[in-house]
């Protein structure tokens, strides 16, 4: 037997077909782009199926043709060969302006129109589609709410009055305005600082869970790909598919050396981006209400081995960490004026990676899980994360064994 590749992965998908997925929304067939005077095509005969309602990530090193591929879907770049099938219809030669009004488009620089208000920016596509003014106004408010920006505050502002993160949100709202079935996003979080980026990514995933658009998402960042993608196409030069699979599959069974190199080290750490806090068994912590007297707090502390209790307000929102020494020093002051503020909170849709980042910098090395309204749900600590990593590794090994056994069986048979 000769070992030809470093990681033989019988189940890795190196074709463009989305095996086991629902109905196909976008189908690229033998798509190619050859620029004049260039020796090699920028995109070489790419065939790719994008299932409805999924986020498909095109990821690869710079110059691999991923952006060109995406821009051919709405024909900002015209393909020189092949076909684009959108929802069963060949749009390779359709009117590009009509086509683009049905496809949301977000680029890295966002490209808001600086001379128009936020409302006017969002109204662009509905106006092009000829909606009535009433319907447009309602849509603007609805979308601003969706991206957590108060309509009455932001409607009449100009882009220069917004922060980078707010501009990005408006960019997403604008792309959603015509209620397109398909969205194209070219490094949409690329120009945003890392902390805001994490938050916006989480918000976007929560939004996508509601709207279920078919999204083609371009990035060069494998971590972002793993976090955001339902499916990832890792592309090599000329937009050739190195592997097209779920993030889990790509981390567990890289199809070839190119994919392994591209994932880089620390596949098990990257897997932390795949699991979310809501999928974990949350640890419970002693909690007290903000109005409780010190004796009640001491009881709660005595009843557990944690050493600190979490003070919750009437809406069950975390307000303070208190310990027994805090109470003594506190001298009967109200509970929200002693101890330390709760500094690390995550929402259920945050990834374990987010939670890990939070708890490492937190006062008591735990991240508090709160729901959308800010109410306390439980705790993630380092033990629960280690446990999660162990489980994932066992699962991954088990899956790899299944592949081996199938191979053995085939050879025997």
């Amino acid at each position: 037997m000769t070992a030809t590749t470093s990681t033989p992965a019988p189940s890795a998908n190196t074709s463009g077909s989305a095996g086991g997925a629902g109905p196909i929304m976008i189908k690229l067939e033998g798509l190619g782009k050859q620029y004049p005077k260039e020796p090699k095509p920028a995109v070489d005969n790419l065939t790719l199926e994008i299932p409805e309602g999924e986020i498909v990530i095109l990821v690869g090193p710079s110059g691999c043709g991923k952006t060109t591929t995406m821009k051919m879907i709405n024909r900002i770049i015209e393909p020189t060969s092949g076909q684009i099938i959108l929802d069963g219809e060949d749009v390779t030669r359709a009117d590009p302006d009509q086509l683009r009004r049905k496809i949301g488009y977000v680029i890295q620089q966002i490209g808001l129109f600086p001379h128009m208000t936020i409302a006017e920016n969002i109204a662009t596509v509905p106006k092009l589609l000829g909606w009535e003014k009433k319907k447009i106004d309602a849509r603007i408010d609805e979308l601003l709410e969706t991206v957590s920006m108060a309509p009455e505050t932001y409607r009449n502002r100009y882009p220069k009055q917004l922060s980078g993160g707010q501009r990005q949100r408006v960019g997403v709202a604008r792309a959603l305005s015509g209620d397109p079935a398909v969205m194209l996003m070219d490094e949409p979080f690329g120009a945003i600082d890392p902390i805001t980026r994490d938050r916006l990514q989480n918000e976007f995933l929560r939004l996508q869970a509601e709207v279920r658009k078919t999204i083609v998402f371009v990035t060069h960042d494998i971590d972002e790909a793993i976090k955001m993608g339902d499916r990832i196409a890792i592309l090599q030069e000329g937009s050739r598919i190195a592997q097209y699979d779920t993030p889990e599959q790509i981390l567990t069974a890289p199809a070839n050396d190119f994919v392994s190199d591209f994932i880089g080290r620390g596949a098990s750490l990257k897997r932390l981006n795949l699991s979310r806090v809501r999928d974990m068994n949350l640890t419970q912590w002693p909690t007290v209400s903000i109005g409780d007297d010190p004796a009640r707090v001491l009881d709660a502390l005595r009843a557990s081995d944690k050493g600190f209790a979490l003070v919750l307000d009437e809406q069950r929102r975390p307000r303070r960490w208190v310990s027994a020494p805090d109470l003594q020093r506190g001298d009967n002051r109200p509970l929200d004026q002693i101890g330390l503020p709760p500094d690390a909170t995550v929402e259920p849709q945050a990834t374990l990676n987010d939670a890990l980042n939070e708890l490492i910098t937190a006062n008591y090395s735990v991240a508090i899980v709160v729901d959308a309204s800010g109410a306390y749900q439980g705790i993630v600590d380092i033990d629960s994360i280690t446990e999660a990593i162990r489980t994932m590794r066992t699962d991954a090994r088990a899956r790899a064994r299944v592949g081996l056994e199938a191979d053995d069986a085939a050879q025997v048979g």
Partner: protein
Amino acid sequence: MTFYEFLERRYDDLITTGLEHMYLVGISVLLSTLIGVLVGVTTYRSERPREIALAVTGSFLTIPSFALFILMIPFFGIGAPPVIVALTMYGLLPIVRNTITGLREVDVATVESAQGMGMGRRQRLLRIELPMAWPVIVAGIRITTLILVGIATIGAIVDGPGYGSFIFDGLARVGSPVAINLVLSGMLGVIVIAILFDSILAVLGKLTTSRGIR
């Protein structure tokens, strides 16, 4: 006769001439703007036409104004028409150049996102590119106006209206005491009109520019 007495005596005349001067410059600036923006819009995309447009309108400005006004006579006679044509030619360069600069400075990403949202070529130009380039274009119109207010005085040699007549009258009477008064009042009138036009355009420019890009 002091300068002040001169102004008092010729008051009506100075006002009428001033209005004529303003009319002359106003029409010419309007024509320069229409033609200049059109030339800018049609040429800014590709290098060759852009360079030709700038070279041609630039060369207009190098023609000595005396010569140009006189050359206009066979085609447009004397009076206001040859002056308007010549002024329009002189006024093109700043407007064409600023239109081209303004349109080329519009952020590519903004235009691409407009394209990606399904705006056609004409919609992108009218709704995105021109409004964004507008402050730069207005700056060009203001420069043109200042240049034309000055050059318009030379139009008096082909019997054009305006303060040029005062200055040329003064020139014809060099040595007599009234000569200085004539030249001085013509010059003062030109300055007043220049300030007036520039203030009007500054306000107009501000009113027609979106708050988002001011």
